[in-house]
């Protein structure tokens, strides 16, 4: 422990191997940013696969893209953006020591998150009904019939949907983890654990949430907006 003469400095949240709260917070922040960096590379590998196959199988990707609901995708994008706002305002509330406001904003964020997952579930169910889930039940017949002028290879089409489910599935999993983190944050916020001197968990939890939002910001055009031009 550093021999700091001022007892007030020693917050109960100070872990013993840190000299002071500043160092602890700076370490936590850097740690979360680095972790998000690893997440970028994690999703990045799949974006690489997506990139290559979109170049190779553009028609199939375009057809697949048209078959998922633009409306639901746009709504989900809006939902996540709203959740990022509530998170950012929540961190601000923590900075200002406004406990009740913080709890409300964290709950709102989670609500948006749940809405996102619910809508995602509906979208997946639609894919299930249309036989677009990769595997033994997969069939590209409805797409082939819908776009008679374009050559669609069912196996290449299946690659689009494999990546669709892998990407949105991985994203949804991160969303679920985020909800878990925020459940814990909300609980502790309600208990009054956070203050202007110590709100680091809220801040870095927020960073994680924003990252999940950013992944979706890219998934939306890449999966939903490949080719929405009206067919002549």
């Amino acid at each position: 422990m550093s021999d700091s003469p001022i007892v007030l400095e020693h917050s109960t949240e100070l872990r013993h191997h840190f000299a002071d709260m500043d160092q602890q917070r700076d370490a936590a922040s850097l740690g979360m940013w680095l972790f998000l960096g690893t997440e970028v590379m994690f999703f990045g590998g799949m974006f690489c696969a997506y990139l290559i196959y979109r170049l190779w199988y553009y028609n199939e990707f375009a057809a697949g893209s048209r078959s998922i609901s633009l409306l639901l995708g746009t709504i989900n994008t809006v939902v996540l953006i709203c959740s990022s706002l509530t998170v950012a305002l929540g961190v601000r509330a923590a900075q200002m020591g406004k406990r009740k406001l913080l709890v409300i904003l964290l709950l709102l964020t989670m609500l948006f998150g749940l809405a996102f997952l619910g809508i995602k579930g509906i979208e997946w169910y639609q894919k299930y009904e249309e036989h677009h889930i990769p595997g033994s039940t997969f069939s590209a017949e409805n797409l082939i019939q819908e776009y008679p002028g374009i050559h669609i290879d069912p196996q290449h089409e299946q690659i689009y949907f494999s990546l669709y489910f892998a990407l949105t599935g991985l994203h949804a999993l991160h969303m679920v983890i985020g909800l878990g983190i925020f459940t814990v944050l909300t609980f502790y916020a309600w208990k009054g654990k956070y203050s202007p001197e110590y709100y680091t968990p809220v801040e870095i939890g927020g960073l994680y949430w924003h990252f999940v939002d950013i992944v979706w910001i890219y998934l939306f055009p890449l999966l939903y907006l490949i080719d929405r031009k009206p067919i002549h």
Partner: protein
Amino acid sequence: MATAAVSTERENYLNSEYGVRSWLLTTDHKRIALLYLLSITFMFFIGGFFALLIRLELLTPAGDLVLADTYNKLFSMHGQIMVFFFLVPSIPATLGNFLIPMMVGAKDLAFPRINLLSWYLYIIAGGIYVHCLLTGGVDTGWTFYTPFSTAFSNTKVVEAGLAIFVVGFSSILTGLNFVVTVHRMRAPGMTWSRLPLFVWSHYATSIIMLLGTPVLAITLLLVVFERVFNLGIFDPARGGDPLLFQHLFWFYSHPAVYIMILPAMGVVSEIVPCFSRKRVFGYSFVAMSSIAIAVFGFLVWAHHMFVAGISLYSALFFSILSYLVAVPSAVKVFNWTATMYKGSISFSTPMLYAFGFIGLFTIGGLTGLFLAALGFDVHVTDTYFVIAHFHYIMVGGAVMGYLGGIHFWWPKISGRMYPEAWGRLAAAIVFIGFNLTFFPQFILGYLGMPRRYWQYPPEFQVLNVFSTAGSTILAVGYLLPMIYLLWSLRYGKIAGDNPWGASGLEWMTPSPPPTFNFDETPEVTWEAYDYENIPMPEEVSLER
């Protein structure tokens, strides 16, 4: 003869708490380092056992010891265990964990609980892998190439893939801890240019761990999905591209080799100045070369794919960059040599390992340049030349660096000296055994013996016999330290704070150190490797 009573007089990290719980729930980086030491040694035994079986099979040209399918499993699992469960964690998780907080003047790493989590992830991953091994194993080669791994292999690819996925996260968390510790936890006065080069090399290693491992993780996950859900992402029959798998796989796995060698280079950078009694020549060049290796290491991965079907232009690019990446490594070798020039050399066990490292790593590295030349690579790809090349670096380099480091810091870790005569003997046996094992493999590869083959034409037998003989000598060389290091825990001479007269904050703590490393946060006002001002050790520990 010192008794146990003397070493427990003073409270240190080993005797501060007793009981299994105090070890399994520890957040002390030093205890976690020891937990890792035990775990990776265990995995090393398994991987080494497979190596011995491989060498036994290759004593004769015929495939007469094991079935071909079994042989495929042996080399696959030997590779996976040694790479993912031994080499990647080896120095960082043991010596790095133990030393980095002390070297920067901190009480612990930035995230002690995450450190413990990383060990548990290692254990879980190891458990999954051992289970996979016991229930059939995997035969895809350590590289999991598709579509064999996704569509044709009937071994436990999913389990092995998941195990490596989990151990990857162990690695990521270790790297994350190191980077944050180096940035945020340095003691007052410990500027970047005063950091030991061991820290610089681990910082560079951690960058690679953070940026590369996630790509491996997603790649293995996609392989698992493909097998489980019968997808066709990497299956050419269904429009998938096997080369995409290889690009994604090697994007991590090439930088991974730098994860495996940089820490050993860091160890050598500590040992050489100490046993030359001279500061490191060109400190900033050595420090920057670690960063350069980490960065350039990401730009060369497709040199593993020269004959796989990548474009010629792409191959040219990766070939040229593979030449460039050798430069920072060469810088290190020059600087270590220049450090020794006009130094006062002692041939202690750590120094013997350092010498071994420098020579063998140089050979391994130079043969890497041979492989970087496109024409030559076409000739020796998938032959024993490649195997010899990477074993020179990984075993002649990284493992010798690891052993040198274990011996160098053993007094600090255990409070005991190992028996020096045995140490030197074992180092010599390792050196001889190693060269006998792997030098013939360069020749075998050049003459055309393919790798991963369970049987071979009779004209290759003599060299194979030499190689197998060498491997048994090497095994003895590895067993000896395990025996005498354990022996030293009870009967070794009690070590003082700084038996080698080495520089670095870790040597200013008692041996073994107290749980929180420093009673007071150190204030650093001196440069690294301040050997002009450090007296030779009074107790000449090297005479034993």
